[in-house]
């Protein structure tokens, strides 16, 4: 194997720039795409000023809910700043969580809890206002419930405090997931598990890009099977098949090493999780696409046809996996489509990978079949 590595290094030395480019392409391109999407999302967020006049649990809770809304970019300001910034249109609108907010909610008061500022150019004021009102109404609703429960239990031995009732109500809301329900028509499969990749799925983007780069890196399978060079193999230590398989192993090691760097980089740059199971699944995916590219390379003798095939197959798989065009309707209607998606096992974190088994079987059969040389 050492000798194979040495011969491979001679090739790699010659192709170092293109090899390095295609090795780093999925990693760098994914980070670029994700950063671009994040930047666009941030730019499209509505700037809203929040003035906190008190530092209580309920006031902070409301602030956190507003801040966690994806469409809003929350800016902490004083009331004077809020007026100025709304006037100068730096902020779309501003909301003041007024003093005694928590106390008023506990008292069951429902008016004059939040004050707002807007201008004639506050295009998002109404929907943002409605959203904040709905958050406040949740709190006032809980408070009212607490008062009702308290009133009902006046004559009872069991007493509930305001805090106990509101806490219980919040827990029920979280546990029952009242605001997120999956609907499905009768006699249709429940699409509780979405097999599609959203366009901002980091590993989905990486998987498609690394599929393409792997195919392009594996053009060595065609270059090294040039018919004239095939005549050398009977007179060297390795048969052509043995030589190609050892190189496949070597490429798998190299590409998996780059994949490990990718995992670490994604963890620090994109906050992706870093787990052993994830690395195991990544290795299976790596091995699968390497086998796929290897077998595809064996089918072709001309480089241009192979490159064309590589782009077509990558595009087809990216569409089938839903990475480029959402195919929710199609997968809901024909759930079996996901079986044909080679990215499914990796992205859905399933250990059973039928594509890997199938490709491995084909490679074994190819290895067992004899080799014929013609002078």
């Amino acid at each position, binding site marked *: 194997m050492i*000798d194979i590595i040495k011969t491979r290094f*001679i090739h790699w030395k010659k192709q170092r720039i293109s090899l390095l480019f295609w090795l780093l392409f999925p990693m760098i391109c994914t980070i670029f795409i994700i950063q671009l999407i994040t930047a666009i999302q941030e730019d499209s967020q509505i700037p809203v000023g929040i003035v906190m006049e008190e530092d209580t649990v309920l006031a902070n809770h409301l602030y956190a809910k507003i801040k966690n809304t994806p469409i809003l970019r929350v800016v902490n300001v004083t009331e004077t700043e809020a007026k100025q910034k709304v006037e100068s249109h730096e902020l779309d609108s501003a909301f003041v969580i007024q003093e005694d907010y928590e106390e008023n909610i506990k008292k069951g008061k429902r008016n004059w809890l939040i004050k707002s500022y807007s201008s004639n150019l506050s295009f998002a004021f109404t929907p943002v206002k409605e959203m904040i009102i709905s958050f406040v109404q949740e709190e006032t609703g809980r408070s009212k419930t607490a008062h009702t429960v308290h009133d009902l239990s006046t004559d009872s031995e069991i007493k509930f405090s305001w805090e106990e009732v509101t806490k219980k109500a919040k827990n029920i809301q979280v546990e029952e997931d009242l605001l997120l329900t999956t609907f499905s028509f009768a006699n249709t499969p429940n699409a509780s598990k979405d097999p599609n990749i959203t366009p901002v799925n980091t590993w989905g983007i990486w998987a498609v890009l690394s599929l393409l780069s792997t195919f392009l890196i594996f053009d060595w399978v065609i270059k090294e099977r040039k018919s004239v060079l095939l*005549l050398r193999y*009977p007179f060297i230590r390795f048969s052509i098949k043995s030589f190609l398989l050892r190189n496949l192993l070597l490429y798998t090691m190299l590409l998996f090493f780059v994949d490990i760097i990718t995992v670490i980089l994604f963890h620090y740059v994109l906050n992706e999780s870093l787990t052993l199971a994830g690395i195991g699944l990544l290795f299976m995916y790596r091995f699968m696409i390497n086998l796929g590219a290897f077998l595809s390379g064996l089918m072709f003798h001309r480089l241009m046809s192979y490159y064309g095939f590589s782009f077509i197959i990558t595009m087809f798989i990216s569409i089938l996996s839903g990475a480029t065009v959402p195919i929710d309707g199609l997968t809901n209607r024909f759930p079996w489509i996901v079986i044909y998606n080679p990215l499914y096992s990796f992205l859905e974190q399933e250990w059973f990978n039928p594509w890997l088994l199938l490709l491995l079987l084909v490679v074994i059969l190819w290895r067992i079949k004899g080799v014929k040389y013609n*002078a």
Partner: protein
Amino acid sequence: MLEVHSLSKSYGNKTIIQDISFTVQPTEIVGLVGENGAGKSTLLSILATLLKPTKGTIALENLNYLSHRKLLREKIGFVPQDIAIWDNFTVEENMIFFEKLSWKNKNNKELRQLCLSMNLDKWKEPVKNLSGGMKRKLNLAISLIHDPELLLLDEPTAGIDLKSRKEIGSYLKSLATEHEKMIIYTSHDMDEITSICDRVLCIGQDAFYQNLLESSGKPLLAF
């Protein structure tokens, strides 16, 4: 010694080679001539273990071709008609590449010496910059890395200049005599065949080659 006895090769009803017998001793260079399609390349492929004969037996150093194919390949050097080298490598990289895959280990000095012995002195030069003659020499040098006992050459001087042709010819002569190699050589150049080879095998029914060779005074076997 290479012993070929009653060798025949057919594809379906078409007979390419019929009942050929000959022997080749160490230090001997045997030329293989015949018109196009007479079966020269087929015979060379059979002797290189790349094709199986329909009938007959072949043995090299008492090793039968049918039962010791892999072992025999370590003793055979085959120089294909087409230049089978890496165009994007230098001469040095080509030699090292094939040495790493070869049955015998040779250090850089030995590899360089092998090239120098046939006047291939552009060690660091990319192959794409070499002349046709230099490429042919490299093609030959690669086939000699594992020190084969039997060297089979399929038109090794096709399309190259006279100087390179002479250099390859004199190298092959010294290789046969000094290193006791058996060499079988095909060419269409009759001057080259008569000047390099000790004996000539004429394949096919064409009397042209036979008459030409008989006039040269070389020992001739015609089939």
